[in-house]
């Protein structure tokens, strides 16, 4: 078993599933690239970040389909194809572009099965890039999985490492419901997301959280890139005798409510770290779950660490201040432990 970066793991899941099932096709803008260029290479790009590279020569242009820049149109084509016998993996280059194709997810893919009385399926996977950190500014940095999680009929995956990405993408492609698969761009090459990945075919069930670290003092729920930040804080806290349990739900819909509730029941404290939104985000959803179902176990206010309620700024120091930081997570953990501001400042200064 070899280590793989998340970039390679996603590619590998696509190869695996396309090999396994002829009905799986890829569709998206420049997912191969090079069509009708001036005689250079086809498969010139494999998507702007090279994730789908090599698939065109391997599976052919009938199954790796470059589209015009027409998101609503090609997402609709993918939904229509999914309802009629193909299993499309459609790429939305950046999740920020969801406003250019949202209806096909919100009102078509998500609802046709229900509206048609259960008489159809829509086995669509939409792969899309999320996340800040690349100085890509306000229109190329959003993590809009909260929007999709709110939509009944959609499933939503936010993997945090190469192993999960491959297994969850395989599950997504085999799933008969529409799945939104959100890839944080900072994870593609992140060393801590590069882990051992089996060559063999495997899947990871939806709705089963991963315990990134086990702990007994505080529960931290974190997704995607945020799990790495949380894990770093947990390691630092361990050195101070504070035992942090980091839970990565991996899928926001379905959500592994049980693992989160169980953990909070044992720790009595919860911090949620979420890049999605400062208002009506995924983090708020987790808090609301716990404030109802594990209320009696809670020993302290529930803390939510998100970006502030402003667009993602371009300038690097601003963007760094925007992204939930280890320091803010640590502060939130210490707050749930009852430390006052002075004590927290002191603890963090000592670190």
């Amino acid at each position, binding site marked *: 078993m070899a280590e793989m970066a998340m970039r390679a793991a996603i590619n590998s899941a696509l190869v695996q599933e396309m090999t396994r099932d002829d009905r799986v096709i890829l569709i998206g803008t420049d997912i191969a690239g090079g069509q009708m260029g001036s005689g250079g290479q086809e498969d010139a790009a494999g998507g702007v970040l090279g994730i789908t590279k090599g698939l065109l020569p391997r599976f052919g242009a009938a199954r790796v389909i470059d589209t*015009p820049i027409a998101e609503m149109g090609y997402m*609709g084509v993918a939904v229509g*194809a999914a309802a009629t016998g193909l299993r499309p993996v459609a790429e939305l280059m950046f999740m920020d572009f969801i406003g250019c194709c949202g209806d096909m997810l919100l009102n078509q893919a998500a609802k046709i099965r229900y*509206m048609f009385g259960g008489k159809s399926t829509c086995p669509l996977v939409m792969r899309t890039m999320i996340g800040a950190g690349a100085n890509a500014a306000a229109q190329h940095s959003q993590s809009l999985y909260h929007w999709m999680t709110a939509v009944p009929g959609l499933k939503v995956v936010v993997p945090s490492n190469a192993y999960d990405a491959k297994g969850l993408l395989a599950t997504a492609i085999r799933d008969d419901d529409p799945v939104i698969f959100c890839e944080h761009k900072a994870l593609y090459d992140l060393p801590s997301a590069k882990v051992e990945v089996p060559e063999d075919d495997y899947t990871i069930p939806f709705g089963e959280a991963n315990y990134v670290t086990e702990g007994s003092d505080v529960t931290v729920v974190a997704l995607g890139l945020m799990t790495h930040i949380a894990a770093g804080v947990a390691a630092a806290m361990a050195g101070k005798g504070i035992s942090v349990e980091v839970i990565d739900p991996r899928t926001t819909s379905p959500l592994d409510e049980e693992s989160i509730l169980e953990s909070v029941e044992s720790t009595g404290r919860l911090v949620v770290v979420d890049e999605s939104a400062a208002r009506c985000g995924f983090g708020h959803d987790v808090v609301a779950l716990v404030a109802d179902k594990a209320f009696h176990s809670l020993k302290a206010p529930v803390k939510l660490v998100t970006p502030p309620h402003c667009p993602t700024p371009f300038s690097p120091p601003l963007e760094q201040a925007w992204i939930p930081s280890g320091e803010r997570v640590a502060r939130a953990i210490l707050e749930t432990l009852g430390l006052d501001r002075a004590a927290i400042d002191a603890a963090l200064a000592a670190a």
Partner: protein
Amino acid sequence: MALKKEELLEAYRRMRTIREFEENIHRENTTGEIPGFLHLYCGQEANAVAVCMQLDDTDYIASNHRGHGHCLAKGADVKGMMLELYGKEDGLCHGRGGSMHIADVSRGILGANGIVGAGAPLATGAALTAKTLGTGGVAVSFQGDGASNEGYVFEAINMAVMWQLPMIFYFENNGYGEFTGHDYVVGSKDIAGRAAAFGLPAVRVDGTDFFEVYEAFGEALKRARAGKGPSVIEAQAVRFYGHFEGDPQAYRSTEELESVREHKDCLKILRQKLIKGKKATTAELDTIDQEAVELINACREAAKAAAFPDPATLMNNTYVSY
């Protein structure tokens, strides 16, 4: 094109059945028993029927909010349709969809749609499936003049051209999008011409003439089945009723409203042509009329008597598994 007598009678029967279905809904709507928004197809029947009777179950259609006629023409069960409109458990969609979402994927019906123009990309996806899997099927989207201004409809046309898909975009230009005239919202005042510039054959036909539609669509279908790519058809159609049931139609002159039933009734026109061309006798057609009335009456009574869904099943079929 030489349609056999049975085919012609079947065409008349389908058009007549749709008409009777819709007139019945129109009457019954005043009872308050039919829930939700209703957009009637009365007056446009020749289009759905002349198109769909040339298709089979491997072919797909995507319809719009004015979808009863398309679904019935494509072979959806009449009683199942009626029950669905009444919101009953044994309706085609178990009462979950209603008029605006009525569908039967097993008959190649990708559904009515509450989103104007959405059917164009969806059907283009069905055409992609047909081409990719080599099913031999074609796909047709039905949309109105109003829908012709939605950007994603153009996107779908462009992709169908690029990929030379077995796809036909059928525009029913009934002169109005809701309450607004076609000439106001289509800057060029020419839907077919605008589409043709995307690089595919686009023709305009008289949508009140069953034969003209049949022929034009037949040509497009032949091309599609032969792998020669997509087409556009713009049909001049006529909407008898308001945009939705309850629309007082203040934007239409009384002359227009009176003249359409008189001079532009596709069913009357077909009937006259059949009799004049000695393809059918008055008696034969009267019998079909009578049978349609009986069928629809029976469906209506069944729908009224049928049971509503059990609220305990509310969440069923949100997902295949969750």
